[in-house]
């Protein structure tokens, strides 16, 4: 199965983990997803939400799909998690 992400006709190279994160955010677009939800549903993990694993991954994803584009898609909801707005 070939997976590809494009924005404004530009192909964006995503790592598998980043791809599945984006996919999850898209499936739940306009809804707030918590860090714990991401850990559980994207990576099938449950542990200490105090680590910055999710932040780091979101940060990378933003660099690739939001940095050079407007409007921004991924937004941080403090205390609650992240939301993807189109």
């Amino acid at each position, binding site marked *: 199965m070939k997976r590809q992400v494009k924005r404004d006709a530009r192909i964006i190279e995503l790592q598998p983990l980043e791809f599945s994160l984006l996919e999850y955010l898209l499936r739940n677009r306009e809804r707030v997803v918590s860090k714990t939800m991401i850990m559980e549903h994207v990576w099938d993990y449950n542990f200490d939400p105090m680590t910055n694993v999710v932040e780091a991954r979101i940060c990378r994803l933003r660099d690739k799909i939001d940095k050079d584009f407007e409007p921004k898609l991924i937004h941080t909801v403090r*205390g609650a998690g992240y939301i993807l707005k189109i």
Partner: protein
Amino acid sequence: MRYKIFNTIAFRLTLWFTGIFAICSSVAFVSFYFLAAQTFQHQIDQELLDNTSKFSAIIHRNGLMGARELAVVEAQAAGEKMIFFRLLYPTGEVFASSHMSYWKDVHVSKQALERLIKNKNSIFETIRIPSTQQKARLLYSYVAADAILQTGIAMDSTSRFLSAFKKVFLGAMGFIIFFSAVSGWLLIRKALSGVQTITTTAQNITGSNLEARVAGTGNKDELDHLVITFNSMLDRIEELVKSIREMSDNIAHDLKSPIARIRGFAELALTHEENMEDYRIMASNTIEESDRLLDMINTMLVISRAEAGEGDFEFKKIDLSIMINEACNLFAPLAEDKNIKFSHTIEDQIFIFADIKMLQRAFSNLLDNAIKYTSKKGKVSVSAVKQKDQIIIKIFDTGIGIKPEYFEKIFERFYRIESSRTSPGTGLGLSLARTIVRQHQGDIFIQTQESRHQDKGTIFMVILPYRNLEVIESSF
């Protein structure tokens, strides 16, 4: 605490002690008494027989008349109260005797005569003289073909001796019992005095005062052994109480800060007129703090349930290699952000029975720590190798290092080395990791990195038992 004297060991032992003494001395007395009585009787019997042979000899030489004289003379010589002689025909008719006023109550026993006539053997008899109640020993014996001698000796000196002996003995017995009771009581009290010391010490020990120790005697006896055991038990209890106290201090401290912050946010919201956005921020801060608290409490529950053997672990066949690789991939960005060189070499296909979620938690905690405590431009590497019967996973970092005295401490719940208090974390991560690994029959060890001059560094080594699952499965 005062206890009834009858319940004391000292009392019971004294009782035994006294009883045994009394029985032993009674046995000694009774045997001596009978031996003495027997010896006396034997002597008397011998004397009676000697007299009889004297009469036989006289009759043989001088006829019956000689015997008549001899009876009188012999009785006078020995004392007429002491001895008597009576000469009879086999019919029982008396034809001669010594002076009999003292012995007149003593008659000739028909039964004895009949038996003598029948068996021809001398017959001994012990009787009591009816008038004086004295004991006497009699002998019936043939002294000639047609003459029988009945002779008797008073046993009053013997009985006097024996009754005196009895009196002396009873006195001695009383003394022995008294002496053994007193000495037994003192000895046992002395021997058990150490127990009293231990009891007193134990009574003085309360929750707040665990420092008291029993002074050992140092003579390596059972009580000294008890004292040593007791003291080492106290050491362990003191240690435990101390660690429980420390832990509850830490819990209180760790619970206090987030709750104080939550309260602060709420107070701010009340006292300030803010716009919607500020309220939103306050609410989200509250959620973050609450999440932290909830996570802490959940982790605590997982640990204590697992330690109590009630953990909800689900063991399945998993590929540990994949799990570790995934965990490393997940944490790679964190290391990257800190410019840490992160590498991993994982042997392929390590199949084990494990609870994957739990092991993930354990490993993510270890990886998180390794990255957290390694400074920028440091190095973190993970390796996993399968050996014959164990799997060794090493998580190596060039971080701040851990002093050996903390190796055990850092696995305690809520324990955080002072230097790490500033970094985020609950102090539960390592405790949880070890609990999980131990539930898999493994363990976690720490090694400090030596020979590296620029960095101290730590190796966390996770050892899990390895069983060849292919072999196990095919054997079913």
